[in-house]
């Protein structure tokens, strides 16, 4: 086939594709609702949720995980563009990570030495490490579905950012159940769960985001 003939065929196809961001927002809200419901049915809300939101140290986990999700979604949308790798700014991720680290150090200093170990290990470490990844499945899947219509030139990186966004959403939702209020607990274990999801997502991205 001659290139001119191919161009004639391509030009004849005028059906528009919706932009990636439109696709993403249209599925993300239902994904969040499904995940909220799953969390509520499987684990339930903590009974003192409203009071906990009034406690700044406890509230910070919502702020951090929400910020992680928001920043990562923005970066993922940037990476969905072919030239995105060179255009996207990654420093907001570093700000979120820095804030989490600062919070961890502050809690370490503020917690009496003999209470540190108990605060860190907590009582629900395994629930946290199992459920954050499980709750991540739907948000991560919908993000992949949306980004497959993009054209990322960094598939593994985009996959990793999707993992951060999806598990950020999952961790925010899980936090409505979790009663462990020490940053020593939630920063340590939430981060570990989020990193696990991120690594798996990077591997998935390297396969499914190629085009």
């Amino acid at each position, binding site marked *: *086939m001659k290139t001119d003939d191919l161009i004639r065929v391509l030009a004849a*196809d005028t*059906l528009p594709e919706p932009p990636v961001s439109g696709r993403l927002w249209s599925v993300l809200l239902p994904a969040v609702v499904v995940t909220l419901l799953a969390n509520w049915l499987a684990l339930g809300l903590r009974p003192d949720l409203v009071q906990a939101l009034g406690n700044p140290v406890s509230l910070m986990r919502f702020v951090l995980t929400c910020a992680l999700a928001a920043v990562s979604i923005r970066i993922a949308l940037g990476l969905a563009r*072919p030239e995105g790798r060179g255009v996207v700014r990654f420093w907001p991720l570093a700000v979120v990570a820095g804030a989490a680290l600062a919070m961890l150090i502050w809690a370490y200093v503020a917690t009496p030495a003999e209470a540190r170990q108990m605060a860190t290990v907590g009582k629900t470490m395994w629930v946290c490490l199992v459920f954050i990844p499980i709750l991540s499945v739907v948000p991560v899947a919908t993000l992949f579905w949306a980004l497959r219509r993009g054209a990322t030139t960094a598939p593994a990186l985009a996959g990793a950012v999707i993992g951060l966004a999806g598990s950020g959403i999952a961790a925010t939702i899980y936090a409505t159940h979790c009663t462990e209020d020490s940053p020593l607990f939630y920063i340590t274990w939430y981060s570990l769960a989020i990193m696990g999801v991120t690594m798996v997502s990077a591997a998935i991205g390297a396969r499914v985001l190629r085009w």
Partner: protein
Amino acid sequence: MKRQMDDWAQLLAAANAGDARAYSRFLRSVAPMLRGLVRARAGSLGDAGCEDVVQEVLLAIHLNRHTWEPTAPVRPWLYAIARYKVVDAFRARGRRIDLPIEDFAEVLPASPDLDPTEAADMAKMIGMLDGRSEKIVRKIGLEGASMAETGAALQMSEGAVRVALHRALKTLAVLRQRHIE
């Protein structure tokens, strides 16, 4: 050169708004740049082999044209697609190619009248489409038929032809990945 870039942005914006003629001009004006790039890098593939790669890149540009943001410059977007697909095309053919982005700035477009080359891969993949899609692509591409004529010939509504063509082009990209790798 600068003027050409502005033209590209205008043409692509019009194309994304549904202007088929602007789109056709855009692709025709981009093709020599791609051809120059591929030939400078891969003369050893032969003319037909190079044209295969050019056509793969054009198909990728087409299928991803919605990822261009009208406020962003066209050139980085275009080069990023070209680079990704050229590297991919070479990997699929068992070669490695190093393609620094700076190279794009220096590429001299191949002269437009150097086009007569027939490439083989795309025709092969069109042959792998289902019968109706294959007919649609051939009618429009090789016979230059319009949507309405194609619809009449295949006893389909014009809208159905449009949808079928859109799907067929997406399928071509999938076939290429399966077939060449």
